């Protein structure tokens, strides 16, 4: 997946987050995260013990030990808060970038009597009509109702080429506030109140102001809370067990054991992972309306992809020269080149490119030549030079022009039409030379992307208005699993519903008003920013670059988000093995000296063992912040392989890593504790 450039960890983000981490220690915030809240309460208890070591009973540890435990626990909480603060700060940085496009601008509001009133953009309300002229900044999101103009949308999309805007075309009638009109004049109906535009909504989202937990996050939080209760039971009951066996355990040590066992690593990083996942989507210039939508993207089973723009370039390009009437390919290519020298359409350019590939020298319009432009009546174009005419055009138009229509011309033309291509005939004077096979061209690399999706178990369905034959040809070439030909908007909805009835989650892209019902029906709907506001309202994501292939990226990001959460959860819980082996012998070795056999890490002293486990537990949080932010490395492949790979890294790794980490920390701690 292409990685957008990102400033992940800059001092501007990292430094202020420290203070945020401290502020977040307010118990009212902490209680939302049950795991870390328990750590905070533990810290409070050991703090009390630092002042009054016997406050909870006679089994007391030294003030110094209590103090050290307190410090580590406070750091653990701070690290967790810091992870969240950094994630939020990165979101805010992203928001700030976007907000720069949100300057207040003067707007020319059209009043009902036809006069124009200049107001501030913040005074505009939904339904207002404004007039924008060349070099004005468009004051708000809206739809073009009159006029044709070029608009520079680079502030939003980063794309420098201006975009044509005109009314009634669905695709091109929508404009975004903050973009600049370059030529002509437009009348725009404002479609959103200030503070409710897509930009506003996204800024709120990436800032985390309206962040809600996603379904998987809620389930994971519940699981972690119940695990915390289980370990609470384990640790609290250990006190009477120890007392019965003549090994009373001091409270600080019990708190240390509890904090080591509860899943603090994932508890600390869970919300940061969610925020960072949203942030990754934003960095792809996609506005997700909710974290739930991003998460759902990971669950997608079926992708509905519009053929034009997503799978193909949307222009028919020259694919093959087919000579007829005894001519050879070279002659035909030369004639085709000559007929196209003045043709600036993508078709024309592609004909010249193909001819060049066959060794024809790139031609220019000769000085004495006359250009015969394409018209709807003639349906052909070409050049006239010294009484010679070289023409290309619709087969029947050319056929009417020439003396004889060779049999193979009709035959080949029918074949091309049958394959879904468009045949253009080329004639020199009154003689047919051959055909140019124009073909809808599949974007390079797209079939590899679909192969990736297939490996992930995602079905791709191409949607097109073409006839079934044409659709089948493109579908085969692009490597999609299925296609929907001669598709009307109703067909799209029907397809989505039938897939959903099978329990599948469906994603699609769209831009037109007639796409809106289907977008609303789909589980993940990515609307193009160039699309109508109806389409954008119905979707749960909007792509600012209006690039429908982004949907594939969004699916990857959704999956990566879920994998990251699962990986850190597994790692966190697997860590417990080593912590048990560090702390349990340390607690009881005083009574049962033989339990030192369980001290497989050979940690130097009981106290240093407990502190080392606790320190490892704390420092693993900041060490994993980069992983939580960037996400687990994800390559599309089957679930079986992914599971094996991730279980090996985060499951087995999670068991082994703390054995090494705790041992290393112990070597250092032993120097001080002795």
């Amino acid at each position, binding site marked *: 997946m292409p990685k957008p450039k990102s400033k992940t960890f800059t001092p501007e983000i990292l430094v202020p987050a420290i203070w945020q981490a401290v502020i977040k220690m307010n118990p009212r915030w902490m209680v939302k995260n049950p795991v870390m809240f328990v750590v905070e309460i533990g810290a409070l208890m050991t703090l009390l013990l630092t002042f009054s070591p016997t406050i909870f009973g006679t089994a007391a540890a030294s003030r110094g030990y209590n103090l050290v435990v307190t410090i580590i626990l406070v750091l653990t909480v701070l690290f967790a808060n810091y992870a969240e603060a950094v994630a939020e700060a990165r979101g805010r940085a992203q928001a700030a970038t976007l907000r720069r496009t949100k300057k207040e601008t003067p707007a020319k509001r059209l009043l009902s009597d036809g006069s124009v009133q200049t107001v501030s953009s913040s005074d505009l309300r939904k339904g207002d009509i404004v007039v924008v002229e060349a070099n004005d900044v468009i004051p708000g999101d809206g739809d073009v109702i009159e006029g044709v103009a070029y608009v520079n949308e680079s502030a939003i999309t980063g794309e420098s080429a201006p975009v044509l805007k005109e009314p009634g075309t669905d695709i091109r009638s929508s404009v975004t506030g903050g973009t600049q009109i370059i030529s002509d004049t437009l009348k725009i109906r404002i479609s959103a109140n200030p503070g409710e535009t897509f930009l506003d909504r996204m800024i709120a989202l990436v800032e985390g102001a309206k962040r809600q937990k996603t379904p998987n996050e809620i389930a994971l939080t519940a699981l972690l809370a*119940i695990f915390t209760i*289980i370990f609470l039971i384990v640790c609290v009951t250990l006190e009477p067990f120890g007392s019965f066996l003549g090994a009373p355990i001091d409270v600080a040590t019990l708190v240390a054991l509890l904090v080591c066992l509860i899943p603090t690593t994932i508890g600390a990083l869970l919300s940061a992972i969610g925020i960072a996942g949203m942030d990754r989507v934003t960095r792809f210039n996609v506005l997700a309306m909710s974290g739930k939508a991003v998460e759902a993207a990971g669950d997608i089973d079926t992708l509905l992809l519009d053929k034009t723009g997503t799978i193909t370039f949307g222009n028919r390009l020259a694919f093959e020269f087919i000579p007829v009437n005894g001519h050879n390919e070279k002659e035909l290519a030369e004639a085709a080149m000559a007929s196209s020298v003045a043709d600036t359409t993508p078709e024309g350019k592609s004909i010249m490119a193909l001819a060049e590939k066959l060794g024809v020298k790139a031609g220019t319009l000769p000085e004495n030549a006359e250009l015969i432009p394409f018209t709807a009546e003639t349906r052909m174009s070409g050049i006239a030079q010294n009484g010679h005419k070289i023409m290309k055009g619709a087969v029947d138009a050319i056929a009417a022009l020439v003396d004889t229509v060779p049999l193979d011309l009709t035959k080949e033309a029918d074949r091309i039409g049958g394959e879904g291509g468009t045949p253009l005939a080329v004639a020199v004077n009154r003689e047919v030379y051959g055909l140019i096979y124009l073909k809808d061209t599949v974007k390079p690399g797209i079939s590899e992307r679909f192969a990736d999706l297939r*490996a*992930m178990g995602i079905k791709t369905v191409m949607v097109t208005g073409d006839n079934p034959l044409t659709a089948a040809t493109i579908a085969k070439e692009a490597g999609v699993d299925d296609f929907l030909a001669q598709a009307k908007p109703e067909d799209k909805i029907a397809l989505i519903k039938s897939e959903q009835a099978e329990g599948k989650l469906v994603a699609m892209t769209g831009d037109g008003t007639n796409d809106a019902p289907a977008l609303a029906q789909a589980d993940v709907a990515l609307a193009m920013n160039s699309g109508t506001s109806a389409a954008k309202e119905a979707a749960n994501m909007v792509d600012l670059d209006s690039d429908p292939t982004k949907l594939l990226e969004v699916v990857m990001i959704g999956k990566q988000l879920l994998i990251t959460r699962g990986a850190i959860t597994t790692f966190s819980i697997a860590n417990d093995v080593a912590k048990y082996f560090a702390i349990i012998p340390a607690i009881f070795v005083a009574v049962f000296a033989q339990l030192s056999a369980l001290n497989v890490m050979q940690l130097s002293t009981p106290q240093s063992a407990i502190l080392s486990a606790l320190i490892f537990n704390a420092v693993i949080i900041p060490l994993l912040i980069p992983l939580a932010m960037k996400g687990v490395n994800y390559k599309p492949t089957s*679930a079986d392989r992914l599971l094996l790979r991730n279980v090996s890294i985060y499951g087995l790794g999670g068991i082994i890593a703390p054995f090494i980490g705790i041992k290393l920390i112990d070597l250092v701690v032993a120097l001080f504790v002795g």
Partner: protein
Amino acid sequence: MVIDILQMAIVLALGFLIMIPLGRYMAAVFMFKPTFADGLFNPIDNLIYRVCRVNRDEGMRWPGYIKAMLLTNLAMWVLIFATFMVQHEPLFAALNPDGQGMMNPFLAFMQASSFITNTDWQNYGGESTFSYMSQMFGLIFPMFTSAATGLACGVAFIRGLGGSVSLGNFYVDLTRGITRVMLPISLVVGIALVGFGIPATFDGAQAATTLNGPLTPASPTAVASPEANASPTPEATPSLTSQGQQSITRGPVAPLSSIKHLGTNGGGFFNANSAHPFENPSPVTNVIEILLMGAIPASIIYMLGIMLDKKKQAWTFFGVLAAFYTAFLAIDYVNEKSGNPLLSSIGVSAAQGNMEGKEVRFGQAQTALFANATTAFTTGSVDSMHDSMTPGGSVTPFSNMFLNMVFGGKGVGFINLFIFVVLGVFMTGLMVGRTPELLGKKIEVHEVKLASLAFLMHPLLIFGFMALTFALQLDLGAISNPGPHGFSEVMYAYTSMAANNGSAFAGLSSNTNWYNVSGGITVILGRYISIVLMLALAGSMAAKKTVPMTIGTMRTDNRVFAGVLVGTVLIIGALTFFPVMALGPIADHLAMVAGQTFQAAGS
């Protein structure tokens, strides 16, 4: 050694061979497919439905199924409790030839709860406390019904996993479980056991003159087998011993012995349970009893493969369970074979291994097989005294009962396994980049909560009551050993009760009001809470839309998932109990190896 291993291998292979046809038969019974015995059973069942006014076609959703199950169990509990409270009345003298007295109501509460929950923890010696009426209606009766209740719940659970919102009809499942599975098998095997020398009679104890002739007896009890199952109760000593006379207790033992094991109940007729020569006279009966215990719990795994039409899934579960089962068998056998080095100083050869508390007729291999089976399948009968196991060997019964899913009891064992399946799928399933799915259903917050709460109950009950016992110093005098071993005794008691196992570490004189009351509560909560929560989970999964399997779906029927499941059980299940294992058996074992002994506080 080689013969031992061969013996164990043969028994495991026999168990495997029973599993397949029995699993097929049970699948047919609970899928209402025709079986060879329909001609016999249909009229019987229909008569029962008519008498009880059961509409056999009425399906129950999960709340209805749970309600029917709980009400039926409550009614039976009342019946059993009443039986115990009136057994001494002259009205029932015909079924009380040995003149057993009135039962302590606390003990009656404990025992009624213990039997109805399929735990069969016994705080009494059967031959000295129970009349024949109590043995039959208070013990043998719930041996069928509690076993069939567990089986019915397991079947209902599997139906829910299969996507059926109706979990079936509890009354029909209960009836078919008894008439078509429990009764026929226990009848046939019961008769066979008579043939192998187990008594079946309503006559009272037999008075016999000993070969020694008239002597003043030194030892009071009739059968000098090892210590009592649960506790040598003070009133346990029969008064019938007089000079040269021995009173040999007997009764309807064979029918009890067969259903005791088939229903994974475990409550013995005699205090010494299956160590008693009348309950388990020979290695042959020992093997039969072991195979009976495993028959239904293992067959359920095969059955679910048929019911869900997911054979590969069933074999994956079976592989995981068989691995745990074999590993725990090996731990037991190796430790017992190694013996107790502390005893070599008094002239016991370490080479013969640990024979304390074992029956010579069974030897180490058969004893290890039995101890592993009885704790894995939650039976709770014993053919040796677990308190006398080496501490290392006792890791096996402890682990089986802590995990409570190594096959487990009929029905409930699979339900418990599924707790770990759900947790394992949820944690690792995210790592394939999708919302975790299990058997085609999404695992979401509701399922995660139910499964993790069901898991929470087990340590909560065990640690909670242990902590109360130690913190409030309740009946600490009941503990017969100092140090870690004494700790293990209390831990074993609550673990066995919470797991509805019923086997005892002995050594703990648990017929006290505290143990009777706390034990009664433990068995009830340990039994019903996880069933209720997990049936709710099955109901929730059944109501969900089925997500089609793709290559992007995490499979739960292959080796990778088997590894995930083993890891989940070890890290979530076993590690929760690691601290107490370290304080009990592990400390005990390490002390034994180091030659350290513990002094009782008072001595």
